């Protein structure tokens, strides 16, 4: 199958809130271990609705692995929920 790790890790995120079609872009995030990851590309941002609560899913990459960051628009918290690398 493929090498995906599912997580539920609180992370610190630096994001730019700007204009245009992608108004929020994570730039960098720090994992619980202290490791910092620089976002090279925002692949896709899509919302997931759970009733009236909205969580924004950010699929990003640092060029070595793909990550999913989830931003809870109500709690204003970021979580790293998936990491996937060397798909083999």
């Amino acid at each position, binding site marked *: 199958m493929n090498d995906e790790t599912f997580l539920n890790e609180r992370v610190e995120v630096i994001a730019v809130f700007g204009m245009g079609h992608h108004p929020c872009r994570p730039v960098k995030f720090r994992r619980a271990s202290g490791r910092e990851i620089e976002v090279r*590309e925002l692949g*896709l941002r899509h919302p997931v609705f*759970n009733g009236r609560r909205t969580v924004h899913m950010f*699929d990003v990459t640092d060029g070595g692995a793909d990550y999913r960051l989830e931003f809870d628009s109500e709690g204003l918290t970021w979580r790293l929920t998936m990491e996937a690398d060397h798909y083999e």
Partner: protein
Amino acid sequence: MSEFNLERPLIMHIDLNSCFATVEQQARPMLRGKPIGIVNRATEHTAIVTASYEAKAMGVKVGMKFREAKVLCPGLIAIESDPPKYRYVYHKLLDIMREYSAHVTMKSIDEGIIDFHYATPDVLTRDMVEIAHEIKRRLKEEIGVWMRCNIGISTNRFLAKTAAGLNKPDGLTVLTSHNLREVFCTLELTDLTGIAHRNERRLNSVGIYTPLEFLAADVVTLQKIVFKSVIGRWWHDRLRGREVDDVSSDVKRVGRQYVLERFDLSYDEILGRLHHLCESVGSRMRSQQKSARGIYVYGKSRRYGYWHSSTLASLPFYSDATIYALARRLFEKAPDELKEIGIHVYELEPLHDEQISLFYDEMVRERSVTEAIDQINRRYGDHTIHSAHTLESGVYVRQKIPFGSTRYL
């Protein structure tokens, strides 16, 4: 070909290329350029729902078992489907399309039609090919750089779809009376939407083996001999670029099916999954403001094949509890060794106040409870309130990609 529709081509069919695989490659850049197969469950026995172009180049086809596909393409990567992601892209595409005309019809989650006959004059004065290029560019800007689509432009829906099927991926084709024969030369009968093997056999029976021969057939042959109905005339018009498919279909039934996650589930565990399907169907039906009178339950058994049973109630029903009670009664006769179950409700009617009956109070109470549950679920999320019986089945019977209908997207 003077009988061909010579109007300006104003129907545009847009088809996202290998939609789910492309969206995953867009979302996860490390997957780009790699052969991937979208599956509904991450197991070796699962079937491929969509394959990326890299996988298709290695012979991987939609519907193929992942295990078999892996033999053809050892590097194939299975990615579990993520419907919210595809729904988001669907809505983005729909938003873009609606900026050009009020008359937009989505045929499924990954393809839709813009009818420019109803567009504003400032849009109508523009070149359709230029608009098509603009839509392609906007897909990349507004969703992501990996997004591609095929666009077909013609005078009717059928030929626009045919055109959209050419030059994949990222193609753009205008099909008119000028190039119709040239394009038809390159196609098989079964490449035409609506011509599957049964219709192919009908056409073969009168010596029609190619789209060009189909195009050359006269209306009497098609109507009286091949299709034996007005359908023959529709085909005659359709092939000549005249519109016969601009019809909206009303919802006639609401259903869901589920391939069991294991083959050794107990009868009660299978009932739990059936109950979950009933709750899902009930919720979908009520979201369309409908109640139903008919219910149909089926099962596919590894030993006994396809089984089904149905019943028609005298009064319309709409609550999950009633749907499940009826389904369960039908299901008592289901065979053993089931591998798939499904249910749909039919004979749909607008949801309105029930006729006065002896059970009026009971019915009003049931409706109030059902509406309250639906409101809570809309506010706090699906299955916030559900039957205790489906407490454990929700992990398995998750919502998957809705093919065909776009009513619930």
